[in-house]
């Protein structure tokens, strides 16, 4: 275990320059070739937000203002991290297959692939976050001191999906079934998290706590704490403990997969 961690860190150290280069080229590829280019980074999420806002506010007539913030902004608060997480759940599982030419044709450390994939999505996330904060401001809600904890939740999110990408990417490289399983689970994970509703208002305490083991709940909730509810991250210690538990489980899974599959993947892909 310790050796695997050491090796992963060493690989990141040796390839630190290439990580940023590959992240950049990954990012450029997503938006190149489209006439609107970068505008799609905003148009697609806005479309999703509009659909949910319309469905809940106009259709189900349920979208009420929360804590003085319009329902649309409440949605934005949770969806901002969700867009990154959605891209990483599937993108993390696909990353090693997608970059198979790095694995099977040249000497290249596998652990780097999830990192630069995640970094490239992170840039899009930062861009969207800036747009989101500007949106809040325009609507009359200027940034305040609670925004300072956004980087903390961003770090939690980045670390978790780095580990997820390592585990899922390797599993999906070995087995297409795993990749299909992940793709089928994205929707379920979305509805079983707090992106679209506030988990704290669920009456059944077992369900309420169970959902907090889903990192999506904690991260989306964390962003909303900063944007909407104006609470600090240390106020809900159980939530952080649930997040840590899930994190540790996936850390072990990732290290197990790394140890077991690292040398096998070049022969299989």
């Amino acid at each position, binding site marked *: 275990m310790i050796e695997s961690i050491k090796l992963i860190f060493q690989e990141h150290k040796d390839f630190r320059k*290439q990580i940023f280069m590959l992240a950049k080229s990954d990012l450029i590829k997503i938006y190149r070739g489209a006439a609107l280019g970068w505008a799609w980074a905003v148009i697609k999420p806005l479309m999703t937000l509009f659909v949910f806002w319309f469905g809940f506010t106009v259709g189900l007539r349920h979208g009420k203002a929360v804590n003085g913030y319009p329902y649309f902004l409440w949605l934005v608060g949770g969806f901002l991290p969700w867009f990154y997480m959605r891209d990483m759940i599937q993108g993390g599982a696909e990353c090693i297959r997608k970059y198979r030419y790095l694995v099977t*044709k040249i*000497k290249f450390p596998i652990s780097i692939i999830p990192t630069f994939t995640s970094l490239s999505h992170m840039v899009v996330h930062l861009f969207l976050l800036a747009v989101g904060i500007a949106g809040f401001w325009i609507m009359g809600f200027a940034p305040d001191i609670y925004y300072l904890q956004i980087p903390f939740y961003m770090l939690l999110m980045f670390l978790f999906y780095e580990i997820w990408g390592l585990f899922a990417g390797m599993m999906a490289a070995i*087995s297409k079934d795993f990749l299909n399983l992940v793709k089928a689970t994205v929707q379920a994970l979305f509805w079983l998290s707090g992106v679209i509703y506030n988990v704290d208002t669920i009456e059944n305490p077992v369900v309420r706590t169970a959902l907090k083991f889903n990192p999506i709940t904690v991260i989306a909730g964390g962003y909303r704490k900063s944007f909407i509810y104006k609470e600090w991250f240390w106020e809900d210690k159980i939530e952080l403990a649930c997040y840590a538990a899930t994190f540790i489980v996936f850390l072990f899974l990732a290290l197990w997969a790394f140890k077991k599959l690292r040398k096998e993947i070049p*022969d299989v892909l």
Partner: protein
Amino acid sequence: MATDEKPVVIRFTHVTKEYKLYKNDKARFKSLFSNKKNYKIKRAVDDLSFELRKGEGMALIGRNGAGKSTILKMITGVSYPTEGEIFVEGTISALLELSSGFDPEADGYENIKLKCSLMGMSDDEIKAVLPDIVEFADIGEYIEQPLRSYSSGMRARLGFAISVNCNPDILIVDEALSVGDRAFRKKCTAKVKEIMADSNVTLLFVTHALATAKDFCQKGIVLEKGKKLYEGNIDDAIEFYDSRN
């Protein structure tokens, strides 16, 4: 023998490589969670030992399935041996499957930079060799187009141009000299000769064109089904190989 005093750059010590052949993906997935042996073992390289010193040229001779490509993959570090030890020193430039290993969405320039950088070259070094590579590949305006629009010949040309122009310590050539039209083939052969004139570059050559092997290599190894049958100077190795077929 001057070469005997030069340091060893590639050493195989009792290297064995086994591939696990599963019936299907499902069986492979299952094996992750159990210790049951539900696969067949295919031994691609069987207890192979050899040494190659700096500046030497060696040809790997053998029929399809003799384990040549597996050996090259292990030298380049793509694949790992099941048993035994491999020692390699210096930067390797491998002309394996030239037309692959590119990013199909990126253009020629970006692919050159990417490949060079992954070989561990610095930005300045890349800048220095970039014009040489573009000139050698000689694919005109296509250098600014995404790789997916390239013909297989153009890909191979670009691949070859990168591999020979990045100042490697060890050059691995796998059937690569048979790509492209005759004019390009001639250019490639001339370039490899030029590189080999520098006595510090080590060459590993895999080919069925035995005449070409004689031009570049002093030593030869004959392989069959992963086993080393013969090791010696190139003329004897070729004679041995011919006598068996």
